[in-house]
């Protein structure tokens, strides 16, 4: 039983069909000038258009990478380390994904000045505080759209306005929101939006980013990967045509099915949440914040999450984000929200997707109930 869609999703059958077909039939290098190359390049272009349509941009603003982590590294280092950039100040938040935090730690280690905007106990940022942190020297604000652990949604339109007014770039990790919720990068004043395939029913190993054509035209972002100058010189490396085609398909599907998925998954989530709240000493993290419809992060007093996961090997849930989970340590997101170590360790993240059923929720609740009675 799979309840860990924020960690990774299965590949939609329609997407894997496109990937297999491309793997088999279209093997040209998309940079080649001959017919094999042109055929591959058309697929890449088509995918670019499908993605642009979903986020409200145009296809020339879409760049492909190996995933959101690379996109985030590219965005932050590409702006910060550009030879013409003299600004040294970056604002981010302690609840960001490790890809953002680790990149910021790296930039800090080479002399950048990073402010970590705190969140309150609901995981919500204070916009006035954000405005007050802005300096002349602020290069960019990096805040995620939807939190991977709690599902808390940041007010990106407002953040975008603040960034725009301050003349700072707004870099947004959209990994958990793109494909699930509607977004318009122009209205939200987002300069760079990062996304990943494997969080939206496309394969692992493919992702991308939107770079505002205005920001690109200023020539203030430099590539992370140097080489054959693919992607208009901003990302070198042979185009991963089959997975790019698959990603495009996943975006195309998301546009059509977004609303239906939301209604269905939200009903499952609400049911799970209501039942979980009946447990002794249980509370939902981020309960009073705007949250995405598929995520429940619950802390249950005295609940040993790791033992529960160990016993219930057939149930895929998470004790935090997967990238950190081989080490048992409290979630940095929950700690930033002010949870105690023990409350953070006693938390479970349940993240749902379109293939879940009512029975899945019933079974999970039964297992949790059994586990607690056993204690």
């Amino acid at each position, binding site marked *: 039983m799979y309840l860990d869609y924020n960690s990774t999703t299965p590949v939609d059958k329609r997407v894997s069909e496109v990937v297999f077909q491309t793997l088999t039939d279209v093997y040209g290098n998309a940079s080649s000038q001959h017919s094999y190359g042109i055929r591959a390049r058309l697929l890449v272009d088509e995918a670019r258009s499908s993605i642009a349509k979903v986020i409200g941009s145009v296809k020339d603003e879409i760049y492909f990478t190996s995933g959101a982590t690379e996109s985030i590294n590219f965005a932050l280092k590409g702006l910060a380390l550009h030879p013409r950039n003299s600004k040294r100040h970056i604002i981010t938040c302690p609840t960001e994904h490790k890809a953002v935090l680790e990149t910021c730690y790296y930039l800090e280690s080479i002399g950048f000045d990073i402010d970590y905007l705190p969140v309150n106990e609901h995981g919500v940022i204070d916009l006035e505080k954000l405005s007050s942190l802005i300096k002349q020297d602020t290069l960019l604000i990096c805040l995620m759209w939807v939190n991977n652990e709690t599902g808390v949604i940041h007010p990106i339109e407002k953040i975008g306005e603040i960034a725009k007014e301050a003349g700072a770039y707004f870099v947004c990790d959209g990994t958990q929101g793109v494909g699930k919720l509607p977004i318009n990068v122009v209205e939200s004043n987002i300069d760079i939006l990062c996304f990943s395939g494997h969080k939206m029913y496309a394969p692992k190993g493919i992702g991308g980013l939107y770079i505002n054509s205005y920001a690109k035209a200023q020539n203030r972002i430099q590539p992370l990967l140097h080489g054959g100058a693919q992607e208009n010189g901003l990302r070198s490396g042979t185009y991963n045509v089959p997975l790019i085609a698959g990603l495009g398909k996943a975006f195309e599907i998301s546009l059509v099915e977004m609303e239906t998925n939301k209604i269905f998954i939200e009903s499952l989530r609400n049911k799970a949440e209501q039942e979980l709240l009946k447990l002794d000493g249980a509370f939902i993290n981020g309960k009073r914040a705007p949250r995405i419809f598929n995520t429940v992060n619950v802390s249950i007093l005295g609940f040993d999450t790791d033992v529960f996961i160990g016993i219930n090997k057939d149930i*895929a849930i*998470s004790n935090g984000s997967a990238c950190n989970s081989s080490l048992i340590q409290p979630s940095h997101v929950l700690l930033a929200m002010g949870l105690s170590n023990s409350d953070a360790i006693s938390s479970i993240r349940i993240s749902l997707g379109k293939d879940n059923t009512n029975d899945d929720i019933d079974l999970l609740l039964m297992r949790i109930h059994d586990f607690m009675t056993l204690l």
Partner: protein
Amino acid sequence: MKAYLDNAATTRLDPEVLEAMLPLMTEQFGNPSSIHAHGRAVRSALERARKTVAGLLHAAPAEIFFTSGGTEADNTAIRGSIETLGLTHAITSPLEHHAVLHTLEHLARQGRITLSLVRVDEKGQIDLDHLEELLSTQPRALVSLMHGNNEIGNLLDLDAVGELCSRYDAIFHCDTVQTMGHYPHDLQQLSAHFIVGAAHKFHGPKGVGFLYVRPGTRIHPFVHGGAQERNMRGGTENVYGIVGLAKALEIAYRDMDEHRRHIEGLKKRMIDQLREKIEGVLFNGLSADLDRSLYTVLSVSLPPSDINDMLLFNLDIAGISASGGSACSSGSEVGSHVLGALQVPADRANVRFSFSKFTTAQEVDHAVQVVAELYKREPIC
């Protein structure tokens, strides 16, 4: 008839590889970093793949790091070694792939390193005396030289370069993208600190590659994020790609001798026929020297003719996919930097044919026939 003769650009996926990848895209979809059963199943496939690759290269699994491809592997090795080991000098050649050359040029522009280019002759041969001279004035340099040149096929004398690098305490990065899966690499013998592979050059999928790092050479990560690849490369692993890469390399090693014989035969056939049918045909670099060039690459130089500008177009019309490469003769024209460095005459047309195990004699014959037709001498009236 169609002829795909651009295998140095990318190769066709082997159906056996696709089969190995399928389960990872369908039923086994967990995140390898997750601790639940879905995650652990995928993790074990990932680690099996690492073990396979390491085993074939006579390395340890901990020395293999998966990346998004050859470009990322090259970037990681170059930037990682310069930044982590505090190197201030790098030596490369003008014939390197852009993944190497542009990365080093970028670091030089930033003032991080001084960059020296080792001399090459008109055949593209690295001047080893000059390399030694550079190393002796700037020991503890990063030396980045490719094993097999993607445009002209020249093979590097790995032992000689490795020996020089050890003598002068240099760090040796070898871009092995074109030889991986085509020549056996034995890391017990090879003294390089870094070698790389890109799956799509040996019938694996695009979007996946790897970096080998010699034990004892610590480098910082290039892509920051989660603790994947033992803290060396953040980002959820492209597991089907990785499994596909391992399978492709396994097949490549299994059938290497047979494929080499087959492909070498095709290359020889093409050389012989071109020589016979086209007056004044030449071959760039060491391309026609079967012992000293990649058996997969043939770089052909065609005599001056009116049709030179339209050569690739004409080949494409005839169903032949090959790759161009013209010398940079004018400032505005962006041609091949490799042929430019060899100073090939600007009035000749250059075309690279590259072969794989799937290439047939018919494809080669077809290509020769079309080229011969194009260069048939018009009677002088």
